[in-house]
């Protein structure tokens, strides 16, 4: 079993922040996994190894990766009827999340190798990296890595002497949270407005250009080379039995902390350890009030919940989700209503407008929050906010954007209700005294 010090995803990063080039990546064991897979493993064996590793999607939903791949129909190999596609979801736009950027800026070849293995497993001949437009540094790193990979025949025709071929291209987007929703992403890359598609059919059956398509998060894909190189058992051991799931996780934390940042740790590390040891605790003069465990679209948790293990199932036991694993901390000198307003403004602005509860409900929520923050709210607004949180929840909308907004809204009003009431009773924001 691992001693918890292994950092397969980040351990080989250069200290100067520059991306590993092809030679450096290969010297660190890079591209051994795809060499091995092409020589010794069938696509089904690659898929089964990933299934056995218990790798779950790191984009936030935690769906088992091997299982996702297995939904691609038509049997094995690239000769099956018609093209298939694999797309790396690099549209990291969850507020508070910055882990995929770190991976791409520092080790773009790891993502390329992950895509190669995924493509081999599902029989895809074409791969895209869908990158958000704001990630210019990552784009440069990926472009250079792609050129190196083509030059060395790690991409292109008959890769490394095998009969497996893969074309890979970077697609630079232009912002917009909806592109991270996988069907919205597929519409976007096809050159359409990024509205979500009805499911079923799922993308694995009918996705990009109407063909079977797998969309995986960057961090998820970066785990795959390590699983194939070292085996599913090794991978499961990385989480040190802290979690039923395998591997490490890139956790992060932002807010009024001594050392905000990101750390690769065994999956199942507690929120308290992240906050107190790795982030160094709260900055001098600031007290802890609560946090969003995995980005903007997760429920608040409080001090009493901090011993929860940060993995997919455990965080649900305290009424939230691990999401992206990048925590956003609320301190006692920041107004919880103002923070909520910032959250809901984001969701309202990013709503694609396709379905009514999201398009109409979120601006209404923003309107009410703005009134409360300005000291113009009324007591019944609080129950209206809770009602909206219920009406924006799963089952009422076309995709997960509005339910994502409902999570911090419902939990925020519940946990910080007294602060909402103080705004309404006092007809002003108690945190705004200094600016008067």
């Amino acid at each position, binding site marked *: 079993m691992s001693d918890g010090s292994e950092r397969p995803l980040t351990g080989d990063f250069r200290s100067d922040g520059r991306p590993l080039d092809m030679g450096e990546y290969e010297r660190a064991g890079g591209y051994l996994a795809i060499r091995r897979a092409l020589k010794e493993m069938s696509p089904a064996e690659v898929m089964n190894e990933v299934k056995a590793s218990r790798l779950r999607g790191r984009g936030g939903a935690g769906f088992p990766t091997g299982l996702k791949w297995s939904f691609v129909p038509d049997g094995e190999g690239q000769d099956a009827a018609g093209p298939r596609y694999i797309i790396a979801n690099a549209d*990291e736009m969850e507020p*508070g999340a910055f882990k995929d950027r770190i991976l791409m800026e520092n080790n773009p070849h790891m993502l390329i190798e992950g895509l190669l293995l995924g493509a081999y497993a599902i029989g895809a001949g074409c791969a895209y990296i869908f990158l958000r437009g704001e990630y210019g540094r990552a784009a440069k790193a990926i472009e250079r890595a792609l050129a190196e990979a083509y030059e060395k025949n790690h991409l292109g025709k008959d890769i490394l002497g095998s009969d497996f071929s893969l074309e890979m291209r970077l697609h630079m987007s232009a912002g917009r949270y909806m592109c991270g929703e996988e069907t919205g992403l597929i519409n976007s890359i*096809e050159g*359409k407005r990024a509205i979500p598609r009805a499911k079923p059919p799922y993308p694995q059956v009918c996705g990009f250009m109407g063909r079977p398509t797998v969309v995986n998060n960057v961090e998820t894909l970066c785990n795959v080379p390590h699983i194939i190189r070292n085996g599913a058992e090794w991978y499961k051991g990385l989480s040190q039995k802290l979690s039923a799931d395998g591997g490490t996780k890139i956790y992060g934390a932002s807010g009024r902390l001594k050392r*905000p940042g990101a750390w690769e740790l065994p999956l199942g590390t507690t929120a308290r350890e992240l906050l107190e040891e790795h982030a160094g605790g709260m900055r001098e003069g600031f007290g802890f009030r609560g946090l969003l465990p995995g980005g*903007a679209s997760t429920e608040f948790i409080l001090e009493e919940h901090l011993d929860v293990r940060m993995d997919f199932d455990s965080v649900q036991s305290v009424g939230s989700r691990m999401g992206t694993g990048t925590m956003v901390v609320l301190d006692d000198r920041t107004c919880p209503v103002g923070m909520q307003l910032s959250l809901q403004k984001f969701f309202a602005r990013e709503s694609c407008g396709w379905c009514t509860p999201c398009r109409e409900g979120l601006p209404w929520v923003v309107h009410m929050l703005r009134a409360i923050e300005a000291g113009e709210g009324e007591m019944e607004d609080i129950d209206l906010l809770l009602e909206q949180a219920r009406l924006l929840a799963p089952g009422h909308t076309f995709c997960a954007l509005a339910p994502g907004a409902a999570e911090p809204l419902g939990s925020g009003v519940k946990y910080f209700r007294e602060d909402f009431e103080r705004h309404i009773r006092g007809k002003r924001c108690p945190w705004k005294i200094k600016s008067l």
Partner: protein
Amino acid sequence: MLSDAERREIEEDIKAYADRKMGCVGALKIVQRHRGWVTDEALKAVADHLQMTPDELDSVATFYPLLFRRPVGRHVILICDSVSCYNVGYEDLLGYLTKRLGIGLGQTTEDGRFTLLPVACLGVCETAPAIMIDSDVHGGLEPPEKVEELLKLYE
């Protein structure tokens, strides 16, 4: 009408795509790079070039915050107003910038040097508060006076 340079760059960019339409965001970025923003005329020319209708292309162009369908200044300052920045000094930074530049969000300075716009999380939350000027992301802007050194880089 597209210029020769624009046409050449667009053709180069869409080469590897299976369908011309797939290159539409890239093509709009190219004309924006040349013209500063996506004018109605440019939109029609790109639509024609990619065999799309202008409305079809505008449904894409109006969707993305990094594509400008109205005139902007020589440099665009995008200030992150998402939650991680909000919690660590966004309001102070916004207040400083609006006072310093004499404009509010969505406005352009009289000399045409800067446009100020809000933007969603820039993914550098560990160095919040952050802004993006043109295509460069800058974090660690607390206290907000730190932005002065940056502004000098964008004449």
